């Protein structure tokens, strides 16, 4: 119906133990929703500016899940993924999350949900309440592609949406670069988060064209300096 050819199966946590509480299943699906949200936030590197409203809503959802996980004190760390499998393989059906919260308590998942146990998922290891979900992500090699804290995501969004001052430059024909920024950008490559708007504009995926023109500008600079020195 929705994604043709791709059907989500729900992991039925109660399959092995009868009478077990629905909580582990809910947590896993909550984790899955968190993963899905992070993937969505990541997929912003297109040629067109990302939709700010959508990003904000997804980010708020992520925050919400984070807060709830903090309250529960349960950080579910999925088992290390099998080599070569992407994070999307861990996504499970999160239909149960659509139900109102009060339904969750003391209720088992609906019996008509197909049950399938993804091989990679072992018993959830309890994580410390203090450990940041982001650190947990980075500790798993294959999850290195996940961001970037939420803050960094917003910085990326912000850098793509410059201040009104930079908007003034929009009128200038062709690229306009602060020479300092160009030079520093050439030397430093991708700078840290505190790099400033000019640098951020050079850093992300669209980098190759600006670099090429930076080299050109640099070449011209050399030429200009030569002329000045000679005179």
């Amino acid at each position, binding site marked *: *119906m*929705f*994604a043709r050819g791709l059907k*989500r199966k729900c992991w039925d946590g109660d399959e092995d133990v009868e009478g077990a509480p629905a909580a582990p299943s809910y947590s896993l699906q*909550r984790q899955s*929703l968190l993963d*899905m949200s992070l993937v*969505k936030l990541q997929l912003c590197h297109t*040629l*067109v*500016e990302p*939709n*700010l*409203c*959508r990003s*904000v*809503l997804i*980010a*708020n*959802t992520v925050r*919400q*899940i984070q807060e709830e996980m903090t309250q529960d004190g349960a950080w579910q760390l999925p088992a290390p993924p099998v080599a070569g499998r992407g994070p999307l393989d861990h996504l499970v*059906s*999160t*239909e149960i*999350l*659509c*139900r*109102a*919260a*009060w339904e969750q308590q003391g209720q088992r998942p609906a019996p008509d949900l197909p049950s399938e146990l993804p091989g990679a998922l072992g018993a959830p290891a309890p994580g410390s309440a203090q450990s940041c979900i982001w650190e947990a992500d980075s500790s798993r090699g294959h999850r290195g592609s996940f961001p970037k804290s*939420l*803050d960094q995501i*917003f*910085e990326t*969004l*912000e850098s*793509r*949406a*410059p*201040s*009104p001052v*930079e*908007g*003034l*430059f*929009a*009128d200038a024909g*062709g*690229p*306009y670069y602060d020479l300092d920024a160009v030079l520093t950008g050439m030397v430093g490559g991708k700078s840290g988060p505190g790099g400033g708007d000019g640098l951020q*504009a050079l850093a*992300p995926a*669209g980098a190759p*064209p*600006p670099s090429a023109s930076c080299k050109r500008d640099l070449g011209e600079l050399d030429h200009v300096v030569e002329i000045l020195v000679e005179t």
Partner: protein
Amino acid sequence: MVLQPSERHYRDWSHRRLGPWCSPTGSPAPLSCETGCGEGSWILVCRLLVPTQVSLLSMEEDIDTRKINNSFLRDHSYATEADIISTVEFNHTGELLATGDKGGRVVIFQREQESKNQVHRRGEYNVYSTFQSHEPEFDYLKSLEIEEKINKIRWLPQQNAAYFLLSTNDKTVKLWKVSERDKRPEGYNLKDEEGRLRDPATITTLRVPVLRPMDLMVEATPRRVFANAHTYHINSISVNSDYETYMSADDLRINLWNFEITNQSFNIVDIKPANMEELTEVITAAEFHPHHCNTFVYSSSKGTIRLCDMRASALCDRHTKFFEEPEDPSNRSFFSEIISSISDVKFSHSGRYIMTRDYLTVKVWDLNMESRPIETYQVHDYLRSKLCSLYENDCIFDKFECVWNGSDSVIMTGSYNNFFRMFDRNTKRDVTLEASRENSKPRAILKPRKVCVGGKRRKDEISVDSLDFSKKILHTAWHPSENIIAVAATNNLYIFQDKVN
């Protein structure tokens, strides 16, 4: 009575092969706004397609190009993504209907004039003018494309023979003048036939050019370009009731413009936090009050509406009224905030109410009561249990619009599977209709549709799992005084009329 083709039709000729139009009842049907949606029944007036290649042809097409049109339009595989309609708007009299599409084009349709011979043809719309409003741009500083997609069109009230409208993409608003020319000055003697200036020595007489009639030509010219005022994507424009100013709203700011001044605008709302990391809410829609030129509202992604009074201060960051419905704790889920995000806000024609659209409902608010809406209508509540899947495929972020009818008694909004819904506020009845080629013969009465929620599916019902979520009706418009509606489904524009017997 068979419809005669006219040079100005860009319509689906295949309808003619389906059979003759239904015969008129005699006198033109009195279309009163008071009919509501329950008592009347809706018929398809016409379905309009403007594929990319055809739109470049001018009004004065000859027989050969019309033949090309006929064969061209029958083959619907030519429709491209650039043809997807992104906004629909009637003008203040309902005589004109403007559409904007993803390719940056604006197509204006004009209502067929009533004539004694062909009474039933009133209510049909034909192409009046087509022009390229916005072009794709590239922002070199950010290495990002600026889409040419027309986000909104708003008409100005007519003050002379010409028509004026505002059209906007993500960054730039343009004021277009659409005017007719049916006379041409002839008799200049300063230039020769090829247009070259003649030697002044050869000119011995003074000749005043004479206006001669010519074939009607409709031309659109950009009169103003309002650029470089929005860092974020423009989602709304609204013409003020003073007819001198208008506002444009993006995700975080709202600017007030004077029509005559393009190089500056006043910022009247700014919700950008000092630290972007603290951003949790964006502006989703904004509109001026229809009568009070100092009042406007804007909606947010958190399901709130703020009403502001520009007399209170220059920067309207502090609202005058704040409309928010308390959350229902029993319905709380991780998607609660997303589905509460308001995608459209519209004042009623009376100015007394505002209507908001969020993902699952349409709400009517009384301006005098901020605590909760006075009416809530369920558009497609059966989707509540599917929110996870809809989040996964991004459908949950679809922005549906909503519209009032001329008398504020009926409200309409779109849904999936090419369905659209109407709610009669007085009778509390509602109807679901479908805008699709397969199910609509011209002048045939639209059959109400029903979605089966669970259990046994009746014969004509469609189950939730069979709904096509790629076919969404986001944009609709209602004629200001009559029961004529325009429904945009991808690249098709359907015009329906209430048939009152």
